[in-house]
Structure formats: C-alpha cells, structure tokens
C-alpha cells in the first residue's frame, strides 16, 4: 500500500484558515489501512478542526465525505457535488489522490492533509515499513525477496557497508540492516552464490531520475 501520515494539526489549520467552507475528503483504500485518511480519521480531524476554530472564535463549516479511492476518476465523481458546495477540499489521500482531484476540478482549491510517506506494508500492528521504491526494474529475485535499493540506507547492491552491526543499520539501532536480512535469507534458501555475483551499476532511467514516469497499456487505450 501507499502509506501516509496526517500533517500536524497546526499546519492543517493554516492551510484551511482562508476558507469558510471546507470539505474533508477521505480515501478508503491505502491510507485507510494505515489509519491516516479513512472515514474514522476524517471524522476525528473534522471534530478537531471545529473545536480549534471555535477556540479561535472563528467560524468554519466543515463537511465530511470518504470515497473508495481518490486516485480513480470513477470514484472521484462521487465527490463532485460536495466539492462544488465548498470553498476548498482538504484531501486525506496520498499525493496521487490530491493530484487526481486537482486534475478533475480545475477551478477548485485542493489541499493536502497528509504527508505521503512510502510504498510499504504493516509489519506488525501499528508498525508500517517501507519495502519498495518503485525503481521500475525489480531485482528481488537475486536478493531473496528483500530490496537493498529501498531498505539499505546507501542503496548498496554489492553487499553491506562497514556499519552493519549485530543485524542493525548504522543509521538507526531500530532499523534492520537489509543486507543482514538478505544474507540470512539467502543462507536459508541455499542461494548465497547470488551474492558472489557482481551487480553492475543500476540503470536509474526507469526510476524517478528519468523524469515523471508513464505506464502505457496499448490494449486498454480507447
């Protein structure tokens, strides 16, 4: 999933302050799963904002709505009347959702309520970890299903740096050394020979270095 976390309330207040009527628009897929942008979070944020504005003796009208996915036009349409009724939309979606709204509603103000963080998983209840950078050229097969591009702080492809100790990364004692995990797993799989292989410089052309990327499916173009 794409993970995100809610912006600090003071930053959100500053964002919505210029507007009298604001729609808080939740997204019911990834950000709901990571507890930052689903129905529940929309409701909590709406209450917090109402209370804050009341304390500031300022009036603001807040409407709440959550749609299935803000990154798909089909679902976005469900929000069109709500968006039309308000001065601004505070989107609790990832950056793709916010931009999809902005593309659909050219004259409406769309504000981000979340900071999009990464592509990851819920490793254990309440703990989300980054797993994929979307580099466009997956090498997980040689690394035993553990990505050094994403999970090694130095993106090393030919083995661990000198800072790996007792299985943890030098930058943070709570972060596993990706290379330690790779070595453990390849040992279990009997595939340590993979690591003797020289890995050439990565072609970053398929990642963000090549500019904004596009996925084209000719068979689906109408």
């Amino acid at each position: 999933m794409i993970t995100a976390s809610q912006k600090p309330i003071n930053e959100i207040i500053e964002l919505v302050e210029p507007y009298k009527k604001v729609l808080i628009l939740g997204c019911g897929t990834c950000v709901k799963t990571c507890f930052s942008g689903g129905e529940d979070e929309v409701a909590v944020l709406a209450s917090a904002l109402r209370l804050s504005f009341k304390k500031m003796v300022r009036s603001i009208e807040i409407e709440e709505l959550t749609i299935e996915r803000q990154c798909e036009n089909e679902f976005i349409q469900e929000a069109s009347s709500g968006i039309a009724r308000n001065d601004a939309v505070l989107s609790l979606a990832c950056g793709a959702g916010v931009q999809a709204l902005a593309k659909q509603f050219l004259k409406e103000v769309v504000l981000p309520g979340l900071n999009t963080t990464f592509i990851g998983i819920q490793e254990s209840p309440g703990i989300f970890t980054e797993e994929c950078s979307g580099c466009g050229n997956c090498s997980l097969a040689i690394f035993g299903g553990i990505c050094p591009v994403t999970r090694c702080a130095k993106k090393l492809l030919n083995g661990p740096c000198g800072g790996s100790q007792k299985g943890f990364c030098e930058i943070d004692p709570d972060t596993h050394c990706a290379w330690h995990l790779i070595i453990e797993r390849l040992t279990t799989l009997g595939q340590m020979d993979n690591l003797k292989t020289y890995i050439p410089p990565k072609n970053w052309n398929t990642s963000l270095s090549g500019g904004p990327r596009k996925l084209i499916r000719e068979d689906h173009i109408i």
Partner: protein
Amino acid sequence: MKTFSHLHENLLQGKFVVTGECGPPRGANKAVIDKKISLLKGYVDAVNVTDNQTAIVRMSSIAASAHLVAAGLEPVMQMVVRDRNRIAIQSDIMGAYSLGIRNILCLSGDHQKFGSQPDAMNVFDIDSVNLVRTVRDMREKGKDMSGFVLDVAPQMFIGAAANPFADPFEYRVIRLAKKIDAGVDFIQTQCIYNIDRFKEWIKRANDEGLTERVYILGGVTPLRSAGMARYMNNKVAGMDVPSDIIKRMDGIGKKNQADEGIKICLETIEVLKELTGVHGVHIMAIEWEEAVAKIVEQAGLK
C-alpha cells in the same frame, strides 16, 4: 611491472608500508593542511585525504590532495559515492589525475545522518564496488563508464576499505573477494583493537588466497583517552573496542592515558608486522598527527 604510485612501488618491493591520514579543514585555510603535511612528511609512504568524513562539510579531498602533491607528500585521495553521481565521480577522477593524484580509496561514505547537514539528499548512484571497477576500467581499458575511449585515461593505484569488525562476519571475506574481483589493489581496514577477530578475518582471507591478490594495510588509531575508547566503541559505526582495552585505559591516570594509547597502538603494529597477509599499517591519528612520528619511530618503521 608498471607502477602507478610510490605507494604501489613500495608495496611491490615488499616494504611494510605506512600510510597516515589528513582530514581537511572546515574552511578554506590551506595553512591547516600545510601544518599536517609538516607533521607527516618523512614518516609515512602516503597520506589518506578524507572526503567530507562523517558527512561534515570540509575542504574537498581533491583540493587538499593537490596541496599534498605540491608539497611532495603522496596523497591517497578518498572518494565517497555518497555525494556524487557517476558523472561527477568520473569527472573528479580525471581532474584528480590531472593534478598529479595517483592513489584513490573508493568508499561508500558515512551516511549524512551523522553529519552537520542531515537534511541533505544523498546520491549513492553507484556503490563502492562499482567505483573500484570504474577506476579500474579507466586504467585498464582507457574508457569511461559509457565505453568512451579517453584521451588520457587516469592510471591510479586503487584502494578500498574493509571492516573485519562489522557483521555479518561470514560475509566480510566474500565482500573482500568481490572488491578484489572489481579491481582493487590495496585494502585499508577499519581500526584494529580486537586483534583476535582481525586474526580470524586475515586467516580466512589467506585461506581463500585473497592476500596474494591484494595488499592489506591494517588500520590503527592511537587512543588519546579512556573516554575516546568508550566513545569509539559506543558511538562510531562499525567500531569494536574490546572491554579489556577500555579497562586498560581506565586503569591509567588521565595524564598518562595518551601514552598508554600509543603503547597499545605499538603493540598492535607489532602483531600486524608478524601476520601473514598484512603488508603495512594505516595510522589514523585523528586530529593528533603529532602522534604519527612517535609511533612510526618507535615501531621501527621509519
């Protein structure tokens, strides 16, 4: 056989070499470099010039190395892949060679999180193994990474680091082999305090025949105080200072701790001299260049 630098020549002749270290200043003051040169010249075969070590911004390693060249002290220019993409890396290698720099040490680099500007973006376009290969291909094939034939291709003596004290231990020798395959000529190790572990590592490297394919310089850093020993053990990534060393430093009055640190360093060098597969010593006297002359003289390495 063609030699690429004086360091290379000394190693070829079978001399037990000594390299030192010079950290460039946090600023543009050449006088700092000049002072370090005067403390090291005549005592070491070459001097590593660090590249924004611990991710703290300093005078560039290339410029400081060029000052050493001008002063007749041979530099080992350190280069990290943290701050440059492959375009800048190749360009800097060519520039360095044109300035008379003949040794390069290829490193990943300390993560910027430890530095003075942790908000910086890192690069890590290529890793240190690929940096080694890049310098090797320039030297052996005369080509840059795109395969373009260079007018004058840099011919450098290529070094890399190895940390026998990092985990997973089992992989450390595989990684060494990988660096040798990539084209590394010499290795400088992380500071050695845990002699038993170093012996185990060098034994495995000997068994694999690796020490016949690469020169190994054992890294040593004289401890200035018991506090420094504890700090290095607890705070410096990839460092292993055994508790008996810390106890030994603790047991000495503050005034004499620096002397004890030098004593420990000399004892380590004595062990290294006798070990098969060790071809020299790399003395990293961090901001304590005065200690180098003393160590070199007392170790009988001058």
